[in-house]
């Protein structure tokens, strides 16, 4: 179970304090598919970064299975990310000089719960990337890149998969494929948090949160 209790986060921008998150309270159960919607600049990416252990809050608690993540040292945070979190980004962030296969294997260097070679191959086959595994990222289409990112995010068998606008850079057909893939992963028991500003996907998950001006509230689907 993932719990956020009274989490607030401020940023100082050009000498002015901006409240990105205001007293956020959230509870995510194992196996939930959480969709977070909100306008640009509303604070949804900040929320995702906090959930991913990339950012610490100014106040509040972030509990994962009862352990406060905000109390972790930098090294413990790195281990937390390596073993608990999977990231899927809008801009893919594939390492340009590594092949598809090498990019997918990247988390294996840092994490503990590692997928086997056979599992990697089966992911590649299921997502129709097996013929592309030796190609470099610039040789792939947007949809293919995002599928590579998803496989990469699954390599450490994450407890929580965080997706930041995963379809933002894709055409409609590729976006549909990616969303279907996330749904399949959720059905297999994976907890997913999807951040999007595209309201078409608000009914994709079983829970919907709206972020508005740093305030988070749960909505009915």
């Amino acid at each position, binding site marked *: 179970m993932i719990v956020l209790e009274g989490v607030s986060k401020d940023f100082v921008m050009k000498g002015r304090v901006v409240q990105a998150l205001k007293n956020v309270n959230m509870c995510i159960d194992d196996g939930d598919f959480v969709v977070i919607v909100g306008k640009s600049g509303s604070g949804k990416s900040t929320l995702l970064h906090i959930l991913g252990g*990339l950012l610490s809050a100014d106040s509040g608690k972030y509990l994962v299975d009862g352990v406060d993540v905000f109390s972790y040292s930098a090294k413990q945070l*790195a281990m*937390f990310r390596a073993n608990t*979190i999977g990231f899927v980004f809008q801009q893919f*962030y594939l*390492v340009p*000089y590594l092949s598809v296969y090498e990019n997918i294997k990247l988390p294996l*260097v840092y994490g503990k719960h590692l997928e086997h070679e056979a599992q990697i191959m089966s992911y590649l086959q299921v997502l129709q990337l097996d013929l592309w595994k030796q190609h470099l990222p610039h040789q792939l289409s947007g949809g293919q890149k995002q599928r590579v990112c998803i496989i990469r995010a699954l390599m450490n068998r994450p407890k929580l998969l965080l997706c930041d606008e995963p379809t933002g850079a894709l055409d409609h057909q590729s976006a549909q494929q990616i969303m279907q893939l996330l749904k399949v992963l959720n059905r297999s028991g994976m907890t997913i948090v999807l951040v999007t500003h595209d309201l078409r996907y608000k009914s994709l998950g079983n829970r919907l949160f709206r972020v508005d001006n740093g305030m988070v509230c749960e909505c009915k689907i």
Partner: protein
Amino acid sequence: MQNIKWLYLYCKKYGLRWLLCCLSMAIAVVCMCLISYISYVVQNALLEQVSLMGTDLLMGYLDRTDGLLDTFVEDIEQYGEVDRYSFVGSDIFYFEQNVYDLKFVENSYFDLYQMEIGSGRLFYDFEDEHVVVVGKDLANTFRLHDRILYHNQWYTVIGILDSVSESFYGNDNTCVFVPYRFYDSSHTQLLMKSTDEVFTKQYLSYYLDMYAIEYEIFCQSQIKEAMKLLLELMEKVLYIIGCVSFVVSMLGIGNVMLFSVEQRKSEIGIRKAMGASDFSIFIQFLLEVCVMSVVGYVMGMVLSVLCILLFSWYLDSHFHLTISMSLYLLLMCLGIGSIAGVAPAYLACKKDVVDVLSV
């Protein structure tokens, strides 16, 4: 090993930039190796020239007005510690707007350096006539029976020397030799050849002190020492210049690495998001520079060996590149590379993951 593999893949894509960094290190290595080789060649050549002079001792600034010097020479001749000797006086003279070295020597001087006559004859110690013998290189300027004016006195050329090896004074082929009896200065020099330089020096000093003759002794070992000191100084200066090439290479590598860190900040961000610690990022970049330095070192050593082989063939000298020098350069490359890499690696590991992934 994983870092090395990533580095290999990185180089496959951005190889040229990486190669240029290695080359800058390689050039610095080549500079140092060539400096070492050139110092070796110059030192050998100069010391060989000094050795050719034989075991000579030159006593300078001797006062010959009171006759004590003649008694001293008779004494040391009697005790037999000195093999051969000659009084020597020096001056210059002008002839047809050119300056020539003039040496007042005794006949034994020619014997001292195995000087052979090419044409004409050598002079005796007690020549009645004013005569001179000229070095081989002056054969085209002065011919036999030519007359030379020096201090309002005409001297006749009676002999031209064959080629001679170096004397204590250097090249004698351009000198004009005059019998010592015509030397009229109050101070003179005494040149001696001895089988035991150190002993003879002590022996002469003892006698010169006893006769209360003021003197200064110059011997071959002194010249060698002075030359060695000079060469060591030259070597140090050259090494400092060589170090400048390392500094330039360090700045180049540091600059390229800084650029690389900026270019790869999204890679750094995603690695951190996947659980890479600051330390592992730091090591990744530092290792990259170290491997770059070692590759540059290997390239430099290969180039150096080729250059030295070429030079030693051209200069007809020995191949000279010591193992200690090679190890020293390896350490230097690693040290310089590490220094160049520390700042970029630190900047890379301290990159804020949210900042670099929010671009």
